[in-house]
């Protein structure tokens, strides 16, 4: 009864606060859409490579590899600058030498690999051996397909992250305002039980977290066409747990903040580091202590479960451990919240 009154009150407050509601419901869609277009952006232009001597065979091979050759007078930084090249390829006594602009190291590395293949072929040609174009390799993929882009792997994590971030922010600041205006204290001077207060807040903000989660997931899958290999119900289940963790963590951390400003200060400390461990960067290559650190972050489990379901097509059986970890995080935060509420009633 009291819990119901509390839930009704939170819903009413939330609906009156149009801007917060808009932030909760529309902002994740906006950011997700933006990321979608940025990461799925059209094909980049072909890299441009300068060559010093006229060499039709070489030029042909470069073109075949998707590189635009251009005749330049010398191999120098100025030449690269002047002609807006990605590199210059020269041959000195038959030995290839490559000068790269290296503005984007990842691109430069890929370019170097392509060119060394071509140079090797060129060398074979020089020895009078028969040159055949590299045979096309029949490739099959365990997950995704030839069309898979970085966004496909990233988007499940992004969906989870946005649910986490916005629910954390809004529940944290919502509760903080109750603490600073004294309404929480006022509430605790009535015969309401701590359990009722906690249930009321979790359910009240939870309703909006659920709505947000459904909107974000539906939008990502249906509008942005993010590939969904597994079941959408599992995606929703994971995200609901993520929302619960964010909700209980936000409420808990608001205990340690004395203003909205201080609440926002938790973002770089609590939220941002989680992004690094959510699966956007490969965890395998990290130092051992970092890997251990990653395992105390809720988003690590969320990211793994979400990419599992959405990209690798895992079923509920595969994600159970991750779900259990998320549920344990939520349980711990909820218990800590119950303890923190003792501050208001001894």
């Amino acid at each position, binding site marked *: *009864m*009291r819990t*119901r*009154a509390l839930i*009704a*009150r939170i819903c*009413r*407050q939330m609906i*009156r*606060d149009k801007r917060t509601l808009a932030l909760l419901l529309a902002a994740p869609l906006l950011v997700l859409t933006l990321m979608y277009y940025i990461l799925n952006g059209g094909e980049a232009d072909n890299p441009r490579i300068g060559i010093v001597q006229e060499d039709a065979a070489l030029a042909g091979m470069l073109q075949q590899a998707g590189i635009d050759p251009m005749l330049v007078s010398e191999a120098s930084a100025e030449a690269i600058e002047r002609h807006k090249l990605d590199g210059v390829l020269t041959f000195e006594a038959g030995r290839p030498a490559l000068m790269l602009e290296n503005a984007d190291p990842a691109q430069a590395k890929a370019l170097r690999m392509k060119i060394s293949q071509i140079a090797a072929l060129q060398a074979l040609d020089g020895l009078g051996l028969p040159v055949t174009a590299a045979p096309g390799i029949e490739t099959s993929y365990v997950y995704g397909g030839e069309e898979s882009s970085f966004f496909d792997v990233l988007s499940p994590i992004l969906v989870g992250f946005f649910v986490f971030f916005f629910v954390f922010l809004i529940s944290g600041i919502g509760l903080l305002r109750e603490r600073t*205006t*004294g*309404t929480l*204290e*006022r*509430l*605790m*001077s*009535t*015969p*309401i*039980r701590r359990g009722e207060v906690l249930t009321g807040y979790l359910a009240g903000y939870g309703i909006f977290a659920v709505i947000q989660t459904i909107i974000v997931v539906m939008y990502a899958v249906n509008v942005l066409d993010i590939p969904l290999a597994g079941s959408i119900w599992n995606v929703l289940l994971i995200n609901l747990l993520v929302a619960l963790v964010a909700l209980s963590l936000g409420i808990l951390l608001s205990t340690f903040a004395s203003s909205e400003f201080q609440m926002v200060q938790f973002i770089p400390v609590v939220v941002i580091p989680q992004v690094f461990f959510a699966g956007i960067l490969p965890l395998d290559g990290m130092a051992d202590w970092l890997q251990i650190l990653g395992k105390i972050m809720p988003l690590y489990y969320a990211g793994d479960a979400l990419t599992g379901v959405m990209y690798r097509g895992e079923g509920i059986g595969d994600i159970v451990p991750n779900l259990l970890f998320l549920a344990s995080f939520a349980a711990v935060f909820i218990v800590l919240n119950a303890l923190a509420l003792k501050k*208001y*009633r*001894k």
Partner: protein
Amino acid sequence: MGIAVQFDRVSKRYGKKTVLQDVTLQMRQGQIYGLIGPSGAGKTTLVKMLVGMERADTGKVNVLGEAMPNLKLLQDIGYMAQSDALYTELTGEENLTFFASLFKLGREAKRERIAYASELVNLSGELGKRVSAYSGGMKRRLSLAVALIQNPRLLILDEPTVGIDPSLRASIWSELLRLKEKEGKTIVVTTHVMDEAARCDYLAMVRDGRILTSGTPRELMAQYDTDNLESVFLAAGGSRR
């Protein structure tokens, strides 16, 4: 008349700072008690102990015959905090309805109490407005209405008239006196406004976590050989240096 509130050798410290030291104080039912003293003297801590928000380190706090903290007892205690703890996005009526739902009140009783409390503080015509559109005085009055919503036997008001204009202050005080006389309520008020202190039945002067002196306003003035409470306040403060 029974005892409404009993502090028995109550001490409280926060870390190294002692906020209350060996406070013994008794309040009888159906009277208005004033806790006076400068800011930081420990008035609010005393008041918070009555609502179970603070626990005494040593000593006992009894309210309406039972040891505090006690969740059930909160049904009988109306509390008005120093800050207007109201939900500003909601209307006055929604605030009252929300707080009424937290107490054991039947549907009919709830409606009656909301009507009564809002009438009492002269807000009946403004209940449909959002609290964010209320003036400071209106918020204060709504806070008082919230404190009265469950018809409590004990009313605890922490600086109820701060930021309220004199005419409204007068009307709130006449209402408090009426509640005491007609309904036999016990009222505990903290204040540092001396003309309010003069209207209390009993006063306790709090300073540095101790009760310096207590008694009726007349007794206090006699004790310090003066004819106004302001001098009592200053003399009591001065004697400690």
